[in-house]
């Protein structure tokens, strides 16, 4: 078993050097390859946006990086060391934190329990090892204040949080545990402009601290706004790797919609409804 290296502090990665590297990673569900020989790097201090249609392997990529799913072939390197995460707990201990698409918040657990779920601070030795509740509460309140949620009672169940604050909880948690890399699977829940700003701000802040950031998004405008590099996935394979200089937002939009599929759809629709062609 590979030793899980201790996470460094913020700014652990040197800008430009790969924090995470995938080498010909393949993930199969039964006989279907969700990811097929995917190779890419996530450099420190850069935001890599993953773009692709539904079913192109974006979620699988997130699962592999966050330790939820083990890859079947290839290598996952963290700072040059090959890793085999057996659980998201190990990935988080190694400094890779994830904002999940569904936010991964347990509604009936209190806010501080949610914040530390799976990585609770403890004190005392084994049969009497217990949660360090005061520390957990304080840390939660401080971390939530950092993402703009103040006046919080950390003992309230997370179900009492409004959607935006729940998202802030997921982000604050990832920022707290992500010492080297941040994986963000853009939440599917509809977000207000303020919430979207918070998400993007947090991502940009993480980049500023030298973290490698992976952003999975369906919104090419946001991707272009914050992204430094763009990884295009199609059918579980890398369809392209672009940098900010290569593309503009409309290029991304076109690429994301699957290029020719989108134009084929457009022409099919205009054939049926000629008035659409004028739009």
């Amino acid at each position: 078993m590979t030793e899980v290296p201790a996470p460094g502090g913020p700014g652990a990665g040197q800008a430009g050097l790969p924090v995470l590297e995938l080498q010909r990673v393949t993930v199969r569900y039964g006989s279907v390859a969700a990811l097929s020989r995917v190779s890419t790097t996530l450099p420190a201090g850069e935001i890599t946006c993953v773009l692709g249609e539904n079913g192109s392997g974006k979620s699988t990529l997130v699962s592999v990086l966050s330790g939820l799913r083990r890859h079947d072939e290839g290598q996952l390197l963290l700072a040059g060391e090959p890793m085999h995460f057996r659980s998201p707990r190990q990935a988080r201990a190694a400094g890779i934190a994830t904002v999940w698409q569904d936010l991964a918040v347990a509604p009936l657990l209190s806010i501080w329990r949610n914040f530390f779920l799976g990585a609770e601070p403890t004190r005392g030795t084994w049969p009497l090892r217990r949660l360090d509740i005061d520390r957990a509460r304080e840390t939660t309140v401080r971390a939530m204040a950092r993402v703009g949620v103040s006046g919080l009672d950390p003992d309230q169940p997370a179900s009492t949080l409004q959607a935006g604050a729940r998202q802030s909880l997921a982000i604050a948690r990832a920022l707290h545990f992500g010492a080297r890399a941040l994986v963000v699977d853009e939440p599917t829940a509809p977000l207000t402009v303020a919430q979207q700003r918070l998400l993007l701000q947090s991502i940009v802040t993480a980049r500023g601290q030298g973290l490698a950031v992976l952003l999975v998004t369906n919104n090419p405008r946001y991707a272009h706004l914050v992204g430094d590099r763009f990884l295009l996935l199609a059918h579980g394979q890398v369809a392209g790797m672009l940098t900010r200089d290569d593309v503009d937002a409309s290029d991304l939009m076109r690429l994301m919609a699957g290029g020719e599929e989108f134009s084929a759809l457009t022409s099919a629709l205009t054939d049926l409804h000629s008035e659409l062609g004028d739009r």
Partner: protein
Amino acid sequence: MISDRLPTLGSPVGITRGRRLAGRALARPSLPALVGLVGVVVFFGLEAPELLTWGGVASVLDAAALLGIGAVAVALLLIAGQFDLSVGVLATASSLVTALLIANAGWDTWPALLASLGVALAVGVVNGVLVVNTGLPSFLVTLATFLVLQGSSQALAHTLAGSVRVTGLDDAPGWASAEAVFGSTVQLGDGRFRVSLLWWLGLTAVATWALWRTRFGNAVFASGGARRAARQLGVPVRRTTLGLFCLSASAGWLIGTLGLIRIGGVQVGGPGLGTGIDFLLIAVIGGCLLTGGYGSAVGAAVGALLYAVARHGIALAGWDAPWFQAFLGVLLLVALVANGVVRRRLKAVPRS
């Protein structure tokens, strides 16, 4: 509870604070059961005054202890989103194993008890592994275990002991010390209080502490309330579930052993020591949600007490025994509705 919060938190307005305290009290899973308990104690205290004598209290607590040990274990499993119907029959089966090892194989008491604990744990592991690895509903898996254990223990008793009853164990070596641990009594007035009471209280206290103050407890709550989130955050859901099935199996063994030591033997297929359904009922009456993620060990203990008071109260008041079943049904309905209301109230606490 208020004092250990950060001073900058919470609005200083008294109303908000009072409302928050009220919300917190309502959020206690054990509250409806507690209200029900007070209700039945008052009602049967008037209807059958002998319930409140030393003798009445002792017999109520005695019944509550055996029920409560199983109910606390089942409550933990319910919180983790799983059922276990096999606890009651496991009690009979494991005490039968102990009895057969002592009576037929000539073992000493303690080795026989350890061996039957091993058998019980094996059943728990089988339950847990089946549930965790196949993803089958635990209700059905443990129903199957229940049937297997019920059938095989009766058949085994018949084949090996020649009857459904194994007795005369109390002259086995080590019986005296086992009796001290599992069968001591204290006489108070005309009531005989048994050591099973201490086992029950101890188990409830440890379970409560573990639920609220340890990582394990967090894992239990998260496994039941938000299994997907738990898995995404690296909570060991499978290990926790497996551990809980082993715990409920051990609780079954403990109930069986307490009964075995008490009567110096075991009877298979009789009225038994309560079936799995009873424990489930008590846990639900004690405030556990059937959907998991919510409940408490204290609630289960209160539920057991409520159950025992009602059963003895009905007997002492001279009513027909079947009324108890009807009462239990009403109680269950009320508990289900109350749990739903409390849960909705809990979710609806306003944020300000």
